[in-house]
């Protein structure tokens, strides 16, 4: 059976036999960095194409279909175009911060990749406070956006950045509380343990209604955190032209664009890990034959399938709903999502203490 675990252990063993341990570790780091960057580039291309195709299908269009079979290389062509474009810096902008901001946004997205388990035992860093690490790092992305908006010296950018700041800071709360429900149920912050706890069923099935509510709140909150429609107030095309990245062009714009899609991937991966069992196959009670067939599907396929399903749901939101207004956005968080998730956490705590889950 195909498994990524075998490849990683083989590479590791080979490196440690051939070289001394320090050098081997350094080489492993380089391999991981290269793999992460490749994954980023690949995901960016795939997700942008996916978004355009999903949007086209929903909007009764065909979507990109000229470059390559079925428009497969459209995003590659777009990237080439963006690389060749001049990266303009406005005259009155704060040059250093202006050029730094896209890299900060990108770096935050990269850091979040570390604790995610892509397949069985295929994880860069299985830190024992994985969930805490994720919520801590993901709140840093607002710094990059604020920096971009402020340094651009553009009124539209500033408005967009300020909206984004208010939005991300408030939605972090309900995203964190939704994640906490799973932590309460599992009793661990380590992602591998959370996945292992879902061997006999995913949390969304095992955790009764509170888990479902937490899942819905999590999806809404991360949609807002990644600045996606209907919460795309930071960009708000029809109001602020392009919000915080109005002044960016060329590759610097592409970095923002890429970071947006990578962020979606990461939050969906986290959602899939916490609520849908990560790489765990679908197991139903005592149907041995069914469970056995499910085990034959590689764990990486399970993980990617769940993640891409969640990404599709978020794209579906974007192409269906109108945008909220800034005060309604904050009302939704503070008057609806936060009280509901607090109550939900209480319920989950009761369930966990009494051991009502399976």
């Amino acid at each position, binding site marked *: 059976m195909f498994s990524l675990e075998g490849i990683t252990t083989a590479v590791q063993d080979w490196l440690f036999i051939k070289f001394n341990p320090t050098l081997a570790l350094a080489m492993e780091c380089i391999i991981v960095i290269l793999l992460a960057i490749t994954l980023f580039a690949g995901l960016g291309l795939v997700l942008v194409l996916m978004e355009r195709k*999903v949007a086209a*299908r*929903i*909007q*009764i*269009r*065909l979507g990109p*279909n000229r470059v390559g079979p079925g428009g497969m290389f459209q995003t590659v062509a777009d990237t080439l175009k963006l690389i060749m474009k001049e990266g303009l810096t406005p005259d009155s902008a704060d040059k250093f911060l202006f050029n730094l901001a896209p890299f900060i946004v990108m770096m935050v997205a990269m850091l979040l990749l570390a604790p995610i388990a892509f397949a069985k035992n295929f994880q860069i860093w299985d830190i024992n406070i994985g969930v805490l690490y994720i919520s801590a790092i993901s709140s840093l992305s607002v710094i990059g956006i604020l920096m971009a908006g402020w340094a651009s010296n553009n009124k539209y950018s500033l408005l967009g950045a300020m909206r984004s700041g208010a939005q991300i800071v408030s939605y972090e709360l309900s995203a964190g509380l939704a994640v906490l429900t799973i932590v309460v149920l599992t009793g661990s912050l380590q992602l591998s343990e959370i996945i292992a706890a879902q061997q006999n069923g995913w949390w969304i099935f095992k955790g009764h209604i509170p888990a479902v509510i937490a899942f819905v709140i999590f999806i809404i909150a991360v949609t807002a955190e990644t600045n996606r429609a209907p919460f795309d107030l930071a960009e708000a095309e029809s109001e602020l032209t392009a919000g915080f990245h109005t002044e960016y062009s060329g590759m610097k714009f592409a970095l923002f664009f890429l970071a947006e899609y990578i962020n979606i991937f990461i939050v969906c991966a986290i959602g899939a890990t916490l609520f849908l069992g990560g790489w765990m196959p679908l197991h139903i009670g005592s149907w041995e034959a069914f469970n056995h067939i499910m085990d034959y599907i590689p764990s990486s396929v399970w993980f990617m399938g769940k993640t891409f399903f969640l990404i599709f749901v978020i794209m*579906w*939101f974007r*192409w*269906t*709903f109108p945008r909220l207004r800034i005060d309604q956005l904050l009302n939704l968080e503070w008057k*609806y999502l936060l009280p*509901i998730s607090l109550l939900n956490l209480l319920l989950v705590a009761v369930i966990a203490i009494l051991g009502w889950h399976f």
Partner: protein
Amino acid sequence: MFLKEYISDVYNGVTSLLKGMRKTGYYFLHPKEIITEQYPDNRATLVLAERFKGEVVMPHDANNEHACTGCTACEIACPNGTIKVVTKFDITPEGKKKKAIDALVYHLELCTMCNLCVVACPSDAIKMAPTFEHSVFDRSKLTKILNKPASKIREGIE
């Protein structure tokens, strides 16, 4: 009471959103509904309405004859000065002078396809053609002479 209102608010809001998602989800799952026309590829099957006002043309018959008498009705009717009639005098076999057109100059770049010239023409010499691919690299190419070289007026048209 407040709690009841709050819950019904949330319920109604969520159901209204789900209804919208069902609609877009239907279109996502039904690619038959796609209405895109792949224009340059479907040129062979493209059907344009016969009345479509694309440009003014002067139909010529098999003997290279047209119906234009050079009366300048179209030139007068045109609001933009799109048409310019250049006339000459032919000598008929009886030795009489007869007015005929030398060139009917048509400026496509000025034309707004209002159809007033076609309506004004007393002998139906000009009509609108359903063509629309007029782009050229040089604007002067849009100035056209509608009568073909060495064409004559058809017999019996005054």
